[in-house]
């Protein structure tokens, strides 16, 4: 702990609790807020340059002012909520499939040495293929646009989850099995009390990585035929030349992505059984 925050801690003890709480929150948030302000200033400055350049002035709606008023309008009309919901729904389904496939396969290749040797190279090859490269195949293979998009998200999400799970299984202490067997654990008890809690933090860490990749893949995937979601909203805003809306959506994509990652971070913390020092 730095001396500044230590002295703050000390002062807090003598304050009314509400004020102490407010101070604590302020102390926690000061650097992130400062960072965001810097970003805002850069953005504003970029908008200022664009507006004063006669060649670019058509794009002046990208500046913070128009963007935030467009965002406000999107929220009021309820359009934004609908857009976000359909995107999150696709992410969620894609992740569920990613977990449903990635965790069992990860456990298998982590547990059976031969399975790992066989699967390693092909899986590493598949992993390096951009999920977007599957786009034409997905469109041919799936009847609905939605299914094609979810397939692309699964292709993005499954690898981190699978490899992270396998890693978790491989580092299980073999003595944990011996001790549990010795204490009379049955097969299902071994799975629910020993194996799953032991690998849970790696599975969740894999999910966090998967969310990162899937969120990045989602937007271009939604350029495909669908008529909802954040990617569609961007395409639509571009076609209608409403650049303020476009910038608002871009902003929303960043903020939601950050929130998703933050949530996953909380989960990782929850399941982490390493002693923090």
């Amino acid at each position, binding site marked *: 702990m730095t001396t500044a925050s230590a002295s703050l801690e000390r002062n807090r003890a003598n304050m009314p609790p509400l004020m102490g709480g407010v101070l604590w929150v302020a102390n926690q948030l000061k650097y992130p807020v400062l960072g965001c302000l810097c970003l805002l200033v850069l953005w504003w400055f970029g908008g200022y340059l664009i507006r004063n350049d006669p060649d670019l002035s058509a794009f002046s709606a990208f500046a913070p002012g128009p963007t935030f008023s467009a965002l406000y309008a999107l929220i009021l009309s309820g359009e934004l909520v609908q857009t976000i919901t359909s995107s999150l729904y696709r992410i969620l389904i894609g992740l569920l499939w990613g977990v449903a496939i990635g965790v069992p396969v990860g456990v298998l290749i982590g547990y059976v040495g031969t399975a790992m040797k066989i699967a390693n190279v092909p899986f590493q090859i598949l992993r390096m293929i951009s999920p977007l490269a599957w786009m034409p195949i997905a469109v041919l293979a799936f009847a609905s646009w939605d299914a094609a998009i979810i397939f692309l998200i699964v292709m993005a999400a499954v690898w981190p989850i699978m490899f992270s799970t396998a890693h978790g299984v491989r580092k299980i202490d073999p003595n*944990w099995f011996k*001790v549990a067997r010795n*204490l*009379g654990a049955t097969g299902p008890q071994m799975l629910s009390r020993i194996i799953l809690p032991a690998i*849970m933090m790696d599975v969740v860490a894999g999910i966090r990585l998967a969310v990162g990749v899937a969120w990045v893949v989602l937007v271009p995937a939604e350029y495909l035929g669908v008529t909802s979601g954040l990617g569609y909203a961007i395409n639509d805003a571009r076609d209608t030349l409403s650049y303020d809306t476009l910038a608002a959506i871009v902003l929303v994509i960043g903020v939601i992505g950050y929130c998703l990652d933050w949530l996953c971070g909380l989960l990782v913390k929850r399941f982490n059984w390493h*002693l923090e020092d």
Partner: protein
Amino acid sequence: MGATISLDYISHRYQAAGPNTLSGINNCIKPGELCALIGRSGCGKSTLLHMMAGLLIPSEGCVRINNQQVQKPSAKWNMMFQKASLYPWMSVKENAALGLLFAGVSPAQASEKIDGLLDMVGLHDRKDARVQSLSGGQQQRVALARSLATEPEVLLLDEPFSALDAFTRGALQEEVPLICRKLNITMVTVTHDIDEAITMADRVLIMSQNPGRIVDELSVDLPWPRRHMDHKFQHLRDELMQMFVQTETTSIQASDPSISKTVAA
């Protein structure tokens, strides 16, 4: 209470075509007896103990506990290992209660019992601690409470104190036999430390190597707790050392005549 362990004509080989790891082991351990098994590294002590725990089935012969053949692990015969192997995602108390949980005892019922056991092993103030914050000795105490929670009739110890510092080891060497006495548990402890064997056991079984067999034994009739500086202790120690050296030379002579010549020369 307390169980009889019969080792009946046990031989074992790990590979079908390989050499015998254990051969012709025949012994009977009485209810409530405290037994130590000593021998060189690799002579098969752990192998024999795993058989008593039901973690390994001998290729010939069998282990019987109270006349019942041991074929799989059971909470009635419990083993403690060199490493405590606690589960880091559980608290001290949850770790100790694990055997009861596997046996279907409700957490509420287990709680009271575990509290008592943790008091007994000296961890009353660390019940909700994270196991990674405990010292090696404290971790081994949790493992002891975990083993005792299911009320075993037999406690098998595979060098459980060898990774601990001398003070902690000394304390546990004294406490564990007393606890076993109190709860009337038959104890078998594996060690290659002669002092530990005499400190903890009523009877010391000496194993030879290649193949592992029980070649000799020594009764230890000393009052508890045992003092290393005690005259009788020293005497038994010398006696055991001599027996040990004897078995070593005989087993070398038996296994390789060329070596015995160089030894003699």
